[in-house]
């Protein structure tokens, strides 16, 4: 694989992405929403100086944070429990970008001129993958950092330390990029077979279901956040899925089948 060609594709994709305000909005908006809801709750609790006994169901989860005052433990539970949704950003956003990129080019018939150059399909895909994954990784990391510091500033610096725990730093460093990569690859594989970005996103949408399931199970199980073991098992699982998707992708996205299946 020649890095100069990958960079050329990557740079072109970024130009394309930066000129697409709707898609840029789709990158930033979900991340901000996922961060805003718990931050709003933390601010609400802080401003209203609520009695922990009034916090109802959450009270039973406060045991997750021994040593913290009850109110701060309640805020800690909210802050950490919502963090599972940060994994939805790398699952959803790159797929939207990748399927838009591939199907958009199929519809515009701009894949053929690119494939007629000395560019290898692997270089094209690498450039597209990087360009689709990077905005989601940057958005997730950016919102994660802002989320940690903002909640610390609103309530107590100890909330910042809860957000920037070893488990979540590991998840951000490993699981987020891996989920991004899986999401992009899945988007590309699905996009190579269909000619409508919405169909591709609907088909690929099942990738978010396990993440939502984990978040819901975590909430109802009374667990405030993931353990390190769960993050590492997640890394392995997603890594395996990436391997399988790459094998399918190399078969689905060869030069000839792209050209002969174009819209």
């Amino acid at each position: 694989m020649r890095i100069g060609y990958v960079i050329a594709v990557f740079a072109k994709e970024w130009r394309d992405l930066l000129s697409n305000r709707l898609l840029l909005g789709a990158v930033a908006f979900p991340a901000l929403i996922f961060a805003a809801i718990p931050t709003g709750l933390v601010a609400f609790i802080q401003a209203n100086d609520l009695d922990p006994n009034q916090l109802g169901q959450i009270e039973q989860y406060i045991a997750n944070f021994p040593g913290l005052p009850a109110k701060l433990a309640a805020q800690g539970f909210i802050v950490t429990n919502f963090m599972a949704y940060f994994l939805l950003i790398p699952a959803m956003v790159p797929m939207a970008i990748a399927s838009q990129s591939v199907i958009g080019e199929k519809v515009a018939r701009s894949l053929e001129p690119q494939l007629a150059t000395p560019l290898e399909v692997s270089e094209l895909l690498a450039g597209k993958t990087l360009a689709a994954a990077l905005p989601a990784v940057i958005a997730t990391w950016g919102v994660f950092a802002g989320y940690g510091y903002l909640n610390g500033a609103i309530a107590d610096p100890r909330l910042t330390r809860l957000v920037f725990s070893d488990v979540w730093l590991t998840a951000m460093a490993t699981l987020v990029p891996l989920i991004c990569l899986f999401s992009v690859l899945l988007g590309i594989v699905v996009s190579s077979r269909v000619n409508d970005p919405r169909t591709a996103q609907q088909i690929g949408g099942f990738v978010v279901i396990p993440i939502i399931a984990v978040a819901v199970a975590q909430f109802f199980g009374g667990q405030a956040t993931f353990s390190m073991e769960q993050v590492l098992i997640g890394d392995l699982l997603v890594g395996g899925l990436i391997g399988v998707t790459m094998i399918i992708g190399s078969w689905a996205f060869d030069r000839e089948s792209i050209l002969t299946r174009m819209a």
Partner: protein
Amino acid sequence: MIVVEGLRKDFRRLTAVHDMSFTVGDGEIFGLLGPNGAGKTTTVRMLAGLITPTAGTASVNGHSLGEGSQRIRAITGILTESPGLHEKLTARQNLAYYGRLYGLRGSVLRQAVDRYLGVVGMAEHADRRVVGFSKGMRQKVAIARALLHEPEVIYLDEPTSGLDPSAAKTVRDFVATLRSLGRAIVVCTHNLDEAERLCDRIGIMRGTLLRVDTPAGLRRHGRGATVRVQLNGARGPHSFLGRLGELPFVTGATAQEDTLVVEMADPPRDTPDLVAALVAAGARISGVAEEAPTLEEAYLSLVGEVGERD
């Protein structure tokens, strides 16, 4: 030079192209003429190293399809059926991107982009996004893209489609210039007039090559050529029909007022013998004119009048 031998492409149970054999020399413009679905685009895609033939071989400037496909793509310029530009990028950004994919860098890339934007008359629109371009403007940028890296072999699919007459002439003149620079050029077109004006040889195809010849040679294929011999004398043309029937190269003859209409296969070769035979028989000839069939007649006689192939 392009050398094609027995090329075939099957898509599952559909045979798109079979038994394609032809050559295109350096400095030659070869036209591929055929109805929709005749296999022109499939043939070009195979020769450009985009899709793999089911059978047969081809070489482009000594590089064989298959193991040499990447090298072939590097020395090939292709104008695809649809311009396929990146809408959100400017014309200059589009060309710069493709220049990089063809290995151009730095000042060489910048100069090539500027040069070809000028060649196709798009310099003043260079920094506008393609999304606002007309069909003709897109076609011009796509032509510049195909030529940017000075390819040795060029495939042009409907090169003047969407262009106004003046721009179409500019493109035709430029293609002719490329021929004089020794490039091997294949033009796919439905436009018979353009094929006749531009191409040194034309291959009429419908799944396979039905006939390859010069435009003049193809015209003669249509119904044989007709030579009109105008007489000026006491004897009417009817009196010479018997003599014409004895000439082996004459395939038919009729008399119309003072003119003999003679059908024959190869007028440039046989007209002198025709004139000599008529003069020997006592005819006084005031004029001889070849009435060649059109390329359209030749095309329709080969392909049939049905546009789409089954």
